[in-house]
């Protein structure tokens, strides 16, 4: 998942970005409203974390402009102002949730995961489809209630496909959203990882969780057990 963090305080931004990267996200960052708006409109983003009090262009304006431009990714507001009026203004402008400063990082990650799930149509933090279950908070995958060990990149691919279960995801989209920019961009790498993922999830080739659609991409094809 690729996140965008727009926050002008350098210490806060650096710490937030470092922790999000630790948590397995690819992260873009911007230090002011102008740069942030550009990133939000031009980059492939799954979720944006936006501080409301930004230099150049305010957070509220960025949110409005994103929504006007048809961007539908979830937006989490960071704000030092916690009067309800300020929160409502943000939510009204098109944000989906807010975290009030000073926050603990766990709270941010919990909101981010909840919003990502929600954008994929999942209601609970554990996504279950067929015999496969994925717990976003613990980053744990089970098949038939048996834990499966995945490398961090395999997990990211599965998480991305599973959050969007039922949708066709192209290889380009996967590369865009999962790699950091300096990573080797080669769609063969994706094929290799998907192959390994299939072997780990489905060693005897009985449940076929990931379908390949020739020329179009991949789809997590198992039926969702529970969705919002």
């Amino acid at each position, binding site marked *: 998942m690729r996140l965008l963090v727009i926050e002008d305080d350098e210490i806060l931004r650096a710490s937030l970005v470092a922790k999000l990267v630790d948590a397995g996200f690819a992260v873009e960052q911007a230090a002011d409203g102008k740069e942030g708006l550009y990133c939000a409109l031009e980059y492939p983003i799954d979720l944006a974390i936006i501080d409301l009090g930004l230099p150049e262009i305010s957070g509220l304006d960025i949110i409005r402009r994103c929504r006007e431009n048809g961007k539908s990714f979830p937006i989490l507001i960071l704000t030092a102002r*916690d009067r309800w*009026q300020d929160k409502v203004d943000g939510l009204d402008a098109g*944000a989906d949730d807010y975290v009030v400063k000073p926050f603990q990082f766990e709270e941010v990650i919990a909101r981010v995961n909840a919003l990502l799930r929600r954008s994929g149509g999942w209601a*609970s933090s554990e996504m279950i489809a067929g015999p496969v279950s994925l717990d976003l908070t613990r980053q744990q995958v089970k098949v038939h209630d048996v834990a499966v060990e995945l490398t961090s990149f395999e997990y990211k691919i599965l998480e991305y496909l599973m959050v969007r279960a039922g949708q066709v995801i192209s290889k380009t989209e996967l590369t865009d959203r999962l790699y950091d920019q300096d990573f080797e961009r080669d769609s063969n790498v994706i094929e290799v990882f998907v192959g390994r993922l299939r072997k780990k999830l489905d060693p005897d080739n009985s449940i076929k969780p990931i379908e390949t659609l020739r020329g179009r991409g991949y789809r997590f094809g198992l039926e969702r057990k529970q969705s919002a």
Partner: protein
Amino acid sequence: MSSLSARLLVSVSLLLLIFFGVTIVVLDVAFRTASEQAQKDILDSQLMSLLAAAEPTDGGVLGMPPDLPEPRFGTIGSGLYAEVTGADGASIWRSRSALGLELPAIVPAAGGAQKFAEAALQDGTPLLTLSLAVQWEFPDGQLRPYVFKVAESLDAFNAQVAKFRRQLFSWFGAIAVIMLLSIAFLLRGMLRPLRQIEAEIAAIEEGARASLSDRYPSELQGVARNMNLLIGSERARSERYRVTLGNLAHSLKTPLAAIRALLEEREQPEFERRANEQIDRMDEIVRYQLRKPAATANESPALVRVDIAAEVQRLVNGLRKVHHVKSPRIEVEVDPRARLRGDVGDLHELAGNLIDNACKWCKSGVRVSVAAVSAEDSRAAGMVLRVEDDGPGVSSDDAGVLLQRGTRLDESTPGHGIGLAIVRDIVLSYGGDITIGRSPLGGAEITVTIP
């Protein structure tokens, strides 16, 4: 136009212009009509004297004596002319004054009738003419038709009218100027209290006086009184801010000291948890002070009427997003007769905290209703905000504790206690009332009444 005096002067000038204009026209017409009538009367009597002077001669024609009673007939170019013509229009007699002039031919009306007409000499001099056709009875019993004509130059008449007009204009002009000047002068006097207010406010800004004086005309006393109220409430407000700021600064010092102490024993177990505890404490102190009511209801005249239905709906829309995971059913019902005069932010704070808490505690349903204070009197101000949920509810023992500042019943639901404390503070500042009870839905029912 932004100046009151300029506005008044312009409108008065316009009024004067219309009024004097009409008066001038009326006077002019009246004077002209009267002069014309006098002119005609004179011509008529001249014609009569002409008729009286005419005598039939022996030759069977009409003759005129050489000297007429009116000397102007005998003076060349006097401006008064007479002529007698026969039935064929040929001149029988002309006055000496008409010597060398061609009097305009005028066909009189049928026998015995007088006819006034305006004509002009060849040189353009305007004339008023009167003609009379008569049948003259000669001694021999024969009747012969004649036309008697008198004409008078209108030069003198026109000059008189023009003179009258000139006088009319100069008199009225002088009156208008005098009136405008006196109005402008009066205005200066009348507007003096406004300039005085301005000076006094400037003095207040400089700190030279405390409030506006009460020596104002009755029309301005209300303004001065409200201004004094505003100044008073501003002063009270800044005093409150000063006190709040002081409280805030002082209450932050304790956790700061605690953190410094903790930093010195950073190797101790649970350092992080204990430091975070202090940070939470500071955060809570700041939040509590920041979210205090924006205004004290009965003090500030700057309060506006709040659109309760729209604001509550905005709030609920936002909260639906925030509580999406739980997706509680939120019913909203707002009585259009409910009124709140106050700060929009305060309404958001009241309803936001209560509905947010209800969403956190409920199993699946929340009900928000806003009613008018009095069902009978539809004009009565005030509102009753009731937020209910179907959660575990609050026991009456806990209810008292909950309303204390910053109390948390359940540490796992952050912000519950401080939210209610803020609600309580706002309600008290509006002179309202808050009660916690049990809802028919099964959970808590919190009722806030704002008069």
